[in-house]
């Protein structure tokens, strides 16, 4: 090949790739931005139990949900608040795709009942950007191509937001030579601290690079 001008199909592929990356880092489909989220239907018949009312803040907005006590925080976000950025990967706390910030701290939303989060402040991937301005970590993931299929990305980004805050607050890790020391930010720390987020496309090198990019210029 002598010319580098791409074929129309290559452009389409690239545009589609761009759209899916944007969906992954924003946590929502681009087309969905203008539409009001439709309420999702109940997936199973109402169980013979008393529903519970839980009030909590999600992405800065007060929410009141009256649901079956079995509803996990993840299912409440996805099925009842139409915030489908947080993903259900394993549903057992092993993959990290459901990671959200609870009172500023990263947690697996699949392993929490909604009823346990009464009064809490939740931030999901949808709550990270300022309008159309991406959060620095979202921008870094996009720039570094820190994903392939994008399924784990919302969890990776929310986890990275919480993880960097943990380092800032001096939370130690298993790879530190001495747990009494102050932690620093480097590739081995990021790998250890992000071990609760699995990427089956194995985009790990770019994920680590993206996270480190956001720390350029900081002491570490």
């Amino acid at each position, binding site marked *: 090949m002598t010319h580098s001008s791409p074929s129309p199909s290559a452009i389409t592929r690239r545009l589609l790739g761009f759209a899916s990356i944007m969906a992954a880092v924003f946590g929502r489909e681009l087309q969905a931005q203008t539409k009001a989220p439709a309420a999702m239907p109940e997936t199973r018949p109402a169980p013979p*139990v008393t529903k519970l009312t839980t009030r909590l803040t999600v992405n800065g907005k007060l929410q009141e949900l009256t649901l079956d006590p079995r509803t996990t925080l993840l299912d409440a976000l996805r099925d009842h608040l139409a915030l489908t950025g947080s993903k259900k990967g394993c549903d*057992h706390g092993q993959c990290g795709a459901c990671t959200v910030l609870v009172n500023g701290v990263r947690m697996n939303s699949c392993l929490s*009942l909604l009823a346990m989060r009464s009064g809490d402040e939740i931030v999901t991937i949808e709550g990270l950007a300022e309008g159309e301005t991406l959060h620095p970590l979202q921008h870094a993931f996009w720039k570094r191509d820190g994903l392939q299929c994008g399924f784990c990305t919302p969890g990776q980004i929310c986890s990275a937001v919480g993880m960097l805050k943990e380092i800032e607050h001096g939370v*130690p890790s298993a790879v530190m030579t001495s747990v009494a020391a102050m932690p620093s930010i480097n590739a081995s720390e990021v790998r250890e601290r992000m071990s609760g987020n699995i990427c089956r496309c194995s985009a790990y090198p770019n994920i680590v690079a993206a996270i480190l990019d956001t720390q350029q210029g900081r002491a570490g």
Partner: protein
Amino acid sequence: MRPFTFERPTSITAATQSASQLGAKFIAGGTNLLDLMKVDVERPTNLVDISALPLRDFGATAEGGLRIGALVSNTDIASDERVRTRYPVLAQALLNGASGQLRNQATAGGNLLQRTRCPYFYDVFMPCNKRQPGSGCSAIGGYSRLHAILGASRDCIAVHPSDMAVALNVLKAEIEVHAPSGVVRTLPISSLHRLPEETPDHDTTLAPGELITAIILPPPPAGRQAYRKVRDRASFDFAVVSVAAVLEVAGGTVRDVRLALGGVAHKPWQPHAAERELVGSPASTDFFLAAGQAAVAGARPQPANEFKVTLAERLIARTLTDLAATGG
């Protein structure tokens, strides 16, 4: 998940009384219980959420130790300055367990009460005496690579999964427990977990409705501390074998040593005979290896986990050698 009712009491008495009713369970972080409810292993009919109870205290004791409320998160324990400098074995054990997300969510009390990760315990279609007493043990003669080599019974060869509990054993921690009657008692951590014997459905010695309210650490022991864990992947995995050690050396001689093993038994395993044998010996690898061999002398491994015996011996020798080299 099966249907359940949910309550969030604000007093310890109300919580323990609710939880003493048949079918009730405490829930705190929920990382293990909800996982088990999803696979139908745990089937509570009433969940007693203890997160509104005043159990987040974390302060010095009059004796010079630390009191850790049962609801303090695993991350907060590992991040505490006093734990990191005076009880590093505890911080290391916590940081070598689970993931960042889980450590943020999981509590001190819940860590101690987590259940075995034996795959047959998790699989409701397989016999398991721990899950269903009398149904048999599928691990004996089955997949048993990660199972017990010490203290197992004909009914169960499961191991306790907690790293924190292993570290607490060498720190001689006390566990504070509130009973539904209002009685408060403390027991040594070594008496909290039990061997399976003929009733592997009981992981601990706690009675129904009894609630762990705090972990009390005595002043740190003399000497140096370390937690070393061997697992199948470099992070976020349970122990194949782990060791918590405290070593005090004076003039090249072992003055005091404390050992506990994880991943080898139904409870953190304390090889007291090996500890006694080592006191007064030269602080050298030969003697540490001998202590390691003494520690697992009574091992009865399964065909698939004989390697754990050698692994435990060498892990003890290596950990003590490193501690002696750093000035133990």
